[in-house]
């Protein structure tokens, strides 16, 4: 079912795009007075979705003295954004920039690793027959029913034994072997990489590795980008995993650091509220930009996931 469904879905996306560009009306459209009712409801829902984020945007421009006393949804008092940023990046010898840098490179390496490993695996599972393939597929499918919580505790014991505890690799390696991604890549490769093309390359004398590095991976850019993006966001946002496995606060990621500030609330000199607000604001900018820029990919990612 999967290949055909994804094929349909891709056609549909092409049609959507055409409709988007021409702005033409579709049959689904409501007309007349109910149109205004629908628009009104959508405006209300959009307000509900955006207002809390707007609150954050307004809050980063305030200071400890105005945040508690002024209307949350509009600017007030002195424009304090630059002072807040200065405080954020200098507090505790600029530990925030360490966390931010950790988050950036860890997310990058994790998603690049996951992308290469799972795309290659999915490709092999789709295009080759080899001994043990059924076993691998069976294990992948079976692993879908295993919830994340089940893995956490035994992983902790295992990682302590092999020296992964409080080690950078604990953030990178476990995320590189997600069965769901290998499955996604396999389903996509079945439809996107034609056997005839591989056969033609073989006749021309290309080896299997050569075929992958110069032909096949180009046909799998979409699942690769999807896997990269979804892992980048997941690594950037992850909280429970680094909290359990990273002890040294110099190794922390932004999310973990923000939680520690939020939990502390105040220290001897500082009300940490403005630091948490500014830190939260800065930490969400890269992911939101990335997700808007790469919408095409994560929308496809969640849709393909829904076909499972």
């Amino acid at each position: 079912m999967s290949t055909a469904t994804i094929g349909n879905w891709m056609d549909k996306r092409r049609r959507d795009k055409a409709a988007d560009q021409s702005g033409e009306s579709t049959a689904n459209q409501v007309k007349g007075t109910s149109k205004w009712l629908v628009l009104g409801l959508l405006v209300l829902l959009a307000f509900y979705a955006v207002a809390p984020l707007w609150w954050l945007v307004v809050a980063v421009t305030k200071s400890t003295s105005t945040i508690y006393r002024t209307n949350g949804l509009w600017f007030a008092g002195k424009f304090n954004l630059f002072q807040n940023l200065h405080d954020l990046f200098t507090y505790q010898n600029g530990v925030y920039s360490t966390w931010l840098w950790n988050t950036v490179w860890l997310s990058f390496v994790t998603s690049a690793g996951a992308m290469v490993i799972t795309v290659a695996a999915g490709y092999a599972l789709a295009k080759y027959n080899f001994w043990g393939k059924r076993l691998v597929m069976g294990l992948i499918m079976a692993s879908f029913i295993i919830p994340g919580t089940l893995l956490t505790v035994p992983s902790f014991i295992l990682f302590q034994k092999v020296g992964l505890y409080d080690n950078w690799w604990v953030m990178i390696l476990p995320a590189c072997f997600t069965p769901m991604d290998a499955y996604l890549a396999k389903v996509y490769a079945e439809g996107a990489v034609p056997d005839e093309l591989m056969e033609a390359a073989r006749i021309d004398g290309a080896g299997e590795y050569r075929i992958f590095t110069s032909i096949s991976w180009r046909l799998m850019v979409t699942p690769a980008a999807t896997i990269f993006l979804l892992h980048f966001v997941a690594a950037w946002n992850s909280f429970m995993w680094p909290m359990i496995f990273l002890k040294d606060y110099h190794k922390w990621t932004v999310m973990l650091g923000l939680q520690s500030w939020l939990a502390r609330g105040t220290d001897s000199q500082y009300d940490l509220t403005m630091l948490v607000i500014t830190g939260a604001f800065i930490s969400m900018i890269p992911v939101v930009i990335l997700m808007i820029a790469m919408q095409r990919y994560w929308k496809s990612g969640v849709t393909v996931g829904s076909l499972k």
Partner: protein
Amino acid sequence: MADSKVTSGGTSGGSSHVPWRIIQAAKGASFVVPFFCGFVFFVIIPIVMSFRVVVYAKQKSGLGLGEAKETFVGLANLIKAAQDTTFWVGFGRVALYGIIMVPVTQFLSMVMALLIDSVKAKTAGKFRILLLLPYMTPGVVQTIIWIYLYSPTTSPFRWTGINFFDSNMVWFSMGQMAVWAGLGFNMLIMYGSLQSIPGEVIEAARLDGASEVRIAFSIKVPYMVSSVTFTTLFAVIGTLQLFDQPYFFRSISPQTITKDFTPAMMIYNQAFQVGNINYATALSLLLALVLCIASIGVYALQGKVNKV
């Protein structure tokens, strides 16, 4: 066991093609080797380990000084977990929360998808981005924003005098936050299934004089069943493993949100605060079992809906 399915065309002749095919299959298999090794190490081994860990218990000898010794206790941990009232009370909390939250979120997302589906493609695109902004926000930042929006010092709702962290209100507060965070994702997937309805079907219904509401209920909603099942399943699994949000709320209101508030928090507490890894593993296995049953339940329910 490289068989003839490796090449689709079978163009290469000659009697020496058998070893060549084996080499080809081996090279193909080598693409999956890195993934499989990692998968075994980070998924299979932890699962196997959990079945070993669960049958042991750490017992301190004598006066509780000296090294703790691991002793075989059989199913004792699992039996104790199954009879643990704290665990089941926590489970009851998330289950009750889920029974209210999941249908509310699904219903609202459905309404949202139907609304967005009934405006012009261009308008839909604009609203879609706005409605998806909460989903693009990192989970930790979502929680931080709402904690400040609820907090008596910074809340724009402080004039109402409601204590959002009060033991009666805290579930509403978390639920409201989850609705806000989850609407966009659910809407996106449901909207995807609405897009696959052929335009002719809706036009025909309209020609027959069906009202917009009637069209929505009799044509559009049935098309959404499979995507709603997917989002429901996702929501159920997520809710039963609830950890991050209550953990954050605990740092604000530790009297209301106890350390064993949800099953996942209890597992975390047992494993990493109390240090009783063996018992925490038993609790994880129990939670995994319950999750499996819940997933099967959702699928069975969908089967029934489809037959009606």
